């Protein structure tokens, strides 16, 4: 790491170093660029570069997927059975060989790998992983495996960020944060939705909001989206139909959609929970064939009449939104897509879960909407509205990213009138999914891989202890600075506490022990006011709503810390000691 900038060590003007070693020394001491490139500012600048590079990588990745689709599956919208069967099967064999021999870390979706980089590997992701992910995921998605490009884009972005961070020799703290910055850039470019990408990374990867990291994440996401739009245009993933909600009573229909979506999410996650460990337990040699077998089965589904399940399937989401399928067929497609995605994902084929989740959600949403229309024809929501809400529902229920799920739908649709149905449906899906499948999908995958990464969902819902949970009532622990020493000692003698708080005038708090009061009395200062006897330094105070962690900073330095009212700092709400804090933590740990 480069030394911090030091303004005082700049060489005097006009005294230029004469030799190279002097130049070097000057660099070490703190050359002008160290002022400009202070690490926090530098990190911001680097975030833009990460965004640009991720944007370029994601654009190339999109080209690669489209090209592999063209050459493997053909150019038309109706594909021949031979291609439908052979392309995913043979490509599956190639992918398996590549993953086993060259890119073992390219397996899976990429979200957990990015989290692992943050929490385990200090932000380190090998460059080879990005290359492997790029090639294998492009082949897999292009050949028709039921996977999406978003999670791989996220991982590619994180990997590029990690490489840049290493080259820039960032500090360990910054290195840890750089992978999420790249992840946001990759995801934003893949989704063409910077807000959702930022939220997802904050919600699922980093798990906390801090101003420093938020700025970098936003910068990288925005710059990657700018690059992506430069090349691919600004059109959204889907043509969004008109959305309207005329009667609030129709929210009931969306609640039903949320319930169905929640159950589907549980089924989908449950499938992964069972199938993935099963596939992993199979003999090692079977890994060469697992993606091929998955590909063959997906090909069979396609030949049987549902080629829509192949690949990311965005064009079919678009068609579903425009009422091009019957609700019965939409329901079948949702079911088949769950099966196809389970096959592709659990076989270890590299590729993402976002696109399949959106596909299943859209189909399910449009199917539920269509079925409800058949029963209650006066419902005003179109198939497109239900499909849009359905996407959010699966996002909330399966990926368990409730905030992202709402903003994703808003960002994709660009229509705020859909917010109420989305919130209603997503809440139902989230609650049902949580109740029936306690472990979120990303946590499940992590644990299956033998890692113990922090669960963002658990962190979000972890109870936070506050000062008010540990403080004692003030009782008879307060003296007034205007009292004489004699009065103060009398009060102190009647108290059970050894240390007494002193309310200073006009404000602030001090502390004095009974022993100190006695010493001062022995010096003959009994008639003197306390204010003139106490040291001028005041002690810190806390408020009842402060996190208990904050109290820890003070209780080891002061035996007693005042807890005061936020509106009136002279009003004591309680007192807190180190013992109080430790006791509360102990109780909390014991449950």
């Amino acid at each position, binding site marked *: 790491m480069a030394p911090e900038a030091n303004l005082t060590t700049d060489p005097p003007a006009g005294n230029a170093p004469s030799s190279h070693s002097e130049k070097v020394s000057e660099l070490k001491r703190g050359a002008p660029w160290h002022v400009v490139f202070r690490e926090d500012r530098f990190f911001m600048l680097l975030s833009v570069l990460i965004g640009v590079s991720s944007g370029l990588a994601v654009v190339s990745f999109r080209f690669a997927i489209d090209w592999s689709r063209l050459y493997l599956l053909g150019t038309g919208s109706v594909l021949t059975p031979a291609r439908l069967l052979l392309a995913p099967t043979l490509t599956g064999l190639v992918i398996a060989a590549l993953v086993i021999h060259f890119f073992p870390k390219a397996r899976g979706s990429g979200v957990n790998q990015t989290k692992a980089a943050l929490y385990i590997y200090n932000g380190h992701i090998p460059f080879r992983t990005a290359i492997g992910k790029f090639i294998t995921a492009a082949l897999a998605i292009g050949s028709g495996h039921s996977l999406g490009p978003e999670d791989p884009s996220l991982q590619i972005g994180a990997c590029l960020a990690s490489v840049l961070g290493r080259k820039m020799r960032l500090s360990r703290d910054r290195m840890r944060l750089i992978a999420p910055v790249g992840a946001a850039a990759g995801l934003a470019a893949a989704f063409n939705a910077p807000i959702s990408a930022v939220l997802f990374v904050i919600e699922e990867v980093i798990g906390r909001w801090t101003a420093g990291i938020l700025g970098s994440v936003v910068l990288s996401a925005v710059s990657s989206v700018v690059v992506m739009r430069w090349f691919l245009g600004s059109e959204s993933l889907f043509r969004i139909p008109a959305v309207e909600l005329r009667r609030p009573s129709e929210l009931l229909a969306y609640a039903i959609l949320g319930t169905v979506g929640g159950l589907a999410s549980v089924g989908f996650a449950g499938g992964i929970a069972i199938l993935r460990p099963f596939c992993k337990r199979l003999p090692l040699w079977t890994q060469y064939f697992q993606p091929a077998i998955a590909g063959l089965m997906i090909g069979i589904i396609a030949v049987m009449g549902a080629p829509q399940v192949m690949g990311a399937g965005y*064009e079919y989401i678009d068609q579903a939104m425009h009422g091009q399928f019957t609700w019965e067929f939409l329901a079948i497609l949702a079911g088949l897509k769950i099966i196809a995605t389970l096959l592709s994902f659990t076989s270890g084929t590299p590729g993402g879960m976002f696109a399949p989740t959106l596909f299943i959600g859209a189909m399910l949403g449009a199917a539920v909407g269509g079925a409800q229309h058949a029963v209650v024809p006066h419902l005003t929501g179109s198939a497109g509205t239900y499909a849009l809400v359905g996407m959010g529902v699966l996002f909330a229920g399966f990926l368990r990213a409730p905030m992202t799920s709402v903003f994703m739908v808003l960002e994709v649709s660009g229509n705020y009138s859909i917010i109420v149905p989305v919130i209603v449906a997503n809440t139902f899906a989230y609650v049902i999914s949580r109740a029936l499948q306690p472990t979120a999908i990303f946590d499940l995958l992590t644990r299956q891989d033998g890692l113990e990464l922090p669960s963002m969902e658990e962190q979000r819902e972890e109870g936070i202890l506050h000062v008010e949970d540990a403080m004692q009532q003030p009782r008879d622990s307060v003296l007034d600075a205007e009292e004489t020493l004699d009065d103060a000692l009398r009060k102190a003698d009647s108290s059970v506490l050894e240390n007494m708080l002193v309310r200073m005038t006009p404000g602030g708090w001090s502390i004095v022990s009974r022993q100190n009061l006695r010493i001062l009395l022995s010096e003959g200062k009994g008639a003197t006011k306390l204010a003139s006897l106490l040291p001028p330094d005041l002690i810190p105070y806390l408020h009842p709503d402060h996190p208990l962690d904050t109290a820890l900073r003070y209780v080891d330095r002061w035996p007693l810390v005042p807890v005061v009212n936020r509106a009136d700092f002279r009003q004591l709400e309680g007192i807190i000691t180190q013992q109080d804090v430790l006791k509360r933590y102990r109780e909390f740990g014991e449950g």
Partner: protein
Amino acid sequence: MVDSYGERVASPGRFNLRFYLRQQPVILTIVSVLLVFAFLFVTGLSGIYYSQRRALGARWFNRGSIDLKNSQFSAAETEFRSALLYSRDDFAYQLNLAEALVGMKHTEEASSYLLNLWEREPDNGRVNLELGRIAAQDGKIREARRYYHDAVYAAWPVNEEQKRREARTELIELLLRVNDRAQAEAELIALSEGAGNDPEQQEKFGKLFLHVQDYERALAAYRTSLKSNQHNAECLSGAGYAAFQLGRYTQAQDYFRAALALDPKDTVSVDLLRTSELVVRMDPFRREIPSAERARIVKSAFGIAGDRLRACDTPKSPPNVAGSARTMNLTDEWAAFKPTVTQQSLRANPDLVDSTMDLVFRIERQTAVLCGTPGGENLALLLIAKLHEGN
């Protein structure tokens, strides 16, 4: 040599490239330069990618267009969908897909595409016309009229006048279907103005004018068409019908005869020709007929009316008290007239001709109301009544 930070530094007087390359600003500059190259590389890739997609899109679109022309809607639909894979928002691809979908009767999906296109180009003639057709099919007449109107005044990239005329023609057909004759006639007049003398076009106008019961304009249109082609049986028949409706029975006869010479199986023309001949023959008010002949015609008409009156007054007729009373009066009147209606008296007294024919016309009208439109000679008398006395 190691400095105080524990890093290797160059010996004095020796340039240490490795050291400089490890400085953040230098790395930043290098990375920026690399990104510029990467940007150029991706720009190149993007050029190849888009040109390939354009070519593929155009290829599928051309195939689809051929199939659409040949009304192979299903194949066209697949091909346009394939084209759209390469250019999702291409206006022409979407419009053609919508037309294929309309051909396949998938109107809901077609509407969805067309409405999107309409939002992009609200004054596009084809889009408005297709939306008008779908709305008309779905019975949404107000919407259909609006779209058709927009199509009439919209921009058409090629053959603008012709396309507008076609759109207006469809609008007129719609208006006729919903029985809005006044509006249809107004549109039709606008359509025919400045339409030129194209015989087919004029024949079409003739038919439409017949539908809106504007027989004068219908006849004029047919005549214009016949100027170019006198051997068009349909046109002759139409002109005959228009002339017949206008009460120009002699002219109608000529047209019907010419039509039947070309198409003897045209039963409508046969019937109308027969009626026209009867009207001409039985009309006592024709000029330049001898008084004896006129008296004979009037006497014959009086007899025919009497027969009709008796036939209509039989118990088979529906019971109608007021009607029966009226026919009773007419029967009495007819009976009272009968002795006076002789060949001689009719020749001698022209006023008697008028009063007799007046009675005949009243009988025919009354019996037409009570017993339905007659045929043959009674119909001829009824038409003569209309011709000379108006409705």
